[in-house]
């Protein structure tokens, strides 16, 4: 009999990540894709990429997370649909059991999670400001003509980082342009930007939080060694970037699915890899029932409506 495996799917605003995990919690295969505003296509693409490895296993459970978790949940047939804060915390505590602080910076979200003895005791997420998240770094790298993959290395080459205002992404950019025009070296500007973003993160998301080591830094931005170094400098303690730093949400979703299937018993709700070839479509209509004019979303598999959401009052939720 094929060995059992768990599938985790994390559909975020910028990236869609999938992992296949064995019963011992080891990652068998992982996929990191750009969502590009088309979550359904990204999930299908990711599943296709996983299918060869998955065909040697029996999928015993599926979990979804991220801002697109509900959508992903109905498409794959999830056993467990969980918010990304819990998923990231679970994954982090799985990889580094003694972790006490998780710094997670993704495409448009950044969060801090405080754990004690493996359990979340406090957390925060960026609210009204997205400075310092992956999207902003991407933009600045493109503007400076530096490939995002080299951004971090460049920062490490700096001897005298310049000071950049990190409160607002737009003003940080004005500051950077000004420093360039003053003739500062590009690596000093890049390093200064990393420090500014770390400052912004700690004063904003990390405000009032009891940040204790061991600290795990994960999410797409953890690839940036310049950001890692800036965190270590600001916090005065080493920061661990786990091997699968960019798919931690998906790992958490897979672990939570395993937990759920074990608790509930019975087979997984997984629709199977063949369901990938089905034609999924999302359509929207505006409900005229009241002045809220809710935008209601229909998810169709073939001709069948498999999910519907978006109404404030819930009148369209059942079908």
């Amino acid at each position: 009999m094929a060995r059992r495996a768990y599938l985790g799917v994390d559909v975020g605003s910028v990236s869609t990540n999938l992992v296949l995990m064995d019963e011992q919690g080891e990652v068998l295969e992982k996929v990191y894709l750009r969502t590009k505003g088309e979550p359904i296509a990204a999930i299908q693409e990711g599943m296709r990429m996983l299918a060869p490895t998955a065909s040697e296993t029996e999928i015993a459970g599926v979990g979804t997370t991220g801002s697109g978790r509900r959508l992903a949940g109905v498409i794959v047939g999830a056993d467990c649909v969980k918010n990304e804060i819990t998923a990231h915390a679970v994954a982090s505590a799985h990889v580094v059991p003694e972790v006490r602080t998780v710094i997670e910076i993704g495409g448009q979200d950044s969060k801090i999670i405080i754990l004690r003895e493996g359990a979340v005791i406090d957390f925060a997420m960026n609210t009204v400001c997205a400075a310092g998240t992956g999207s902003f770094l991407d933009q600045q790298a493109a503007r400076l003509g530096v490939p995002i993959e080299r951004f971090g290395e460049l920062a490490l080459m700096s001897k005298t980082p310049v000071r950049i205002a990190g409160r607002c992404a737009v003003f940080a950019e004005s500051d950077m342009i000004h420093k360039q025009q003053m003739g500062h070296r590009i690596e000093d500007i890049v390093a200064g930007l990393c420090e500014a973003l770390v400052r912004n993160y700690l004063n904003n998301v990390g405000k009032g939080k009891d940040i204790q080591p061991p600290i795990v830094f994960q999410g797409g931005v953890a690839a940036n060694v310049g950001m890692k170094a800036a965190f270590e400098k600001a916090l005065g303690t080493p920061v661990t970037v786990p091997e699968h730093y960019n798919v931690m949400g998906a790992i958490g979703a897979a672990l939570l699915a395993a937990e759920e299937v074990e608790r509930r018993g019975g087979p997984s709700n997984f629709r199977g890899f063949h369901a990938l070839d089905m034609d999924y479509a999302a359509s929207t209509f505006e409900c005229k029932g009241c002045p809220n004019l809710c935008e209601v979303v229909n998810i169709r598999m073939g001709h069948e409506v498999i999910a519907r959401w978006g109404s404030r009052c819930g009148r369209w939720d059942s079908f």
Partner: protein
Amino acid sequence: MKITFAHMGNLYITVKALLEDLGAEVVVPPMPSKRTLSIGSRYSPEFACLPLKVNIGNYVEALELGADTIAMAGGVGPCRFGMYGEVQREILKALGYEFDMVIIEPPQGRIRHVLEQVGRLVGRNPMRKYVGAVRLAWAKMTAVDELEKAAQRARPFERRRGAATSALGSALKLVDEAAGISQVRRALEEGQEMLRSVQDPTPGASRRNPESPPRIGIVGEVYVVLEPFVNFEVERRLGEMGVLVERSIYIGDWVKEHVFKDFMRLRKSRRPYDLAKPYLCHFVGGHGVETVGHTVEYARRGFDGVIQLAPFTCMPEIVAQDVLPAVSRDLGIPVMTLVFDEHSSDTGVLTRLEAFVDLVERSRRRRRARDGTMG
């Protein structure tokens, strides 16, 4: 004269009863909707807090329905709310609306001003008419509070998701339509019965927790705490996740504390202030001190978590927010802050609520495992 006023949760039932019983014609604005918010944000200063914007939307929608007089509360202290009546009048005048605005300042022991302003709204009335109207309004206000509390207790145990909320809606309608105190009493009983009947009678039927649901207290700025439209129905959502919710502010308690006792020159309760004292001993405007005091109280009562609600840029709540981590640490109660602005997506709020409920449940399980008790 057609009087209107801004919405704040179910307060309209009380205000409408009071004014109508005094012989005034009332135009209740449509319940706040996306339209209300977009009108409000279009005409309000960008950095004003959400209450001002939704108020403006309420007024415009009521003026469209023929209202010609706006009743608004004033205020004192560092919270900007005290200025909102004046600012709103200027905004609406600039838009070309013709109306009269009556701003009722807190009495602070001087009853005369209040009576003068109320007189402007409803004309001269014999004293016994005032007494009758206040008694009816009071009965309705108390009934609304009782029903809201009953709905909070019912939600974690409801058989069908949303049943308690729709029962609450029908019950509130009965209270709103009740013509006298005895009818209000009947409406309340009927409403309580409806809210009982939506629950699963089997003991321990709570969806998430077979033994007993977790308890979460909601604290914060009065408007965002009481108005479900702006707080993305935090109360209902938590209830439907299987949480027993209690709010630090119910409109009846609030009126008793801030209007009635002031009016009657009675001593106000010092309790939230006393409880807040180790952390915050100055009046910081709005409900800053109460937020801290109630968090302490919920911790002492053994609640599993506290959620603070605040409108974006609310100074009193920002002060409280900075103090709350110390309360949380000292008393071992998880605290989360949610800030509300004009966002139209509830995804962010839902993610945080779900994560907070996860946190609360895990810490409860741990606490119980440590104490070796259930219950």
